[in-house]
């Protein structure tokens, strides 16, 4: 394969890190619950990207299987998360994550 000689493995690592960082910033700075969930998706995808690239560079399919599992977990997380969010929205009429501070001790 020709193109991998052009692109060093570090680039994918940097790209993945940048994506993860963006997702992390999103989780930390946004107050909208749905956007926070989406930022978590972004972080999961950064990990996925790094896993797929390392699978390709190390010739090991296990990493792709992990990506598979991460996708499953992401799907579960989103469906449960959004279901919880809709229940909360019905009670609180708000999308603000700071409105959910009732569990504080």
């Amino acid at each position, binding site marked *: 394969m020709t193109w991998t000689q052009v692109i060093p493995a570090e680039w994918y690592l940097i790209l993945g890190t*940048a994506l993860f960082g963006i997702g992390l910033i999103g989780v930390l700075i*946004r107050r909208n619950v*749905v956007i926070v969930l*989406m930022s978590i*998706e972004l972080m999961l995808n950064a990990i996925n990207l790094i896993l797929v690239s390392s699978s390709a*560079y190390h010739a090991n399919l296990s990493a792709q299987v992990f990506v598979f599992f991460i996708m499953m977990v992401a799907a579960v997380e989103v469906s449960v998360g959004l279901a919880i969010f809709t229940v909360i*929205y019905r009670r609180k009429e708000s999308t603000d994550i700071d409105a959910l501070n009732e569990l504080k001790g």
Partner: protein
Amino acid sequence: MILGLFCFLSLLTIMSALSVILSRNPVYSVLSLILCFFSIAGHYILLSAPFLAVVHIIVYAGAIMVLFLFVIMLMMRTSDVGLTSWVKRIGSFFVVGVLGVTIVALMQRGTLVLPRYLASVEGSVSSLGRVLFGQYAIPFELSTILFLSAVVGVVMLGKKS
């Protein structure tokens, strides 16, 4: 040409990811995230994992993002709640900066051993399936239990009590 494709896809990924967390309108966020997922699928194809790329599109763009869009369209008023306090914002940038510096430093020091070239691995359906259902059969079955419990949980939550 491959290098150009990589740069284009990476730029698209980063820009759309930034747009996810920076747009004021949640619908724009969702659409940018869909674009981001498409560019990541492009990366998967570049990394010769077409099966994962297509599954990525089906799962994320086809199912998860529809769910997000659905919830946002149904639930949300167009006014957004905005950002957290300044302290948290600066703190988050600090955390992310430290993370980035650490990664770069690790690569500079040569602690991360990275291969130079791609080994010729075929991410085809059959080879991936052999690994998934051979070596990882038990985790796969366990993940189905996770799925089942999620389905039950969501149905429970969705019921009007």
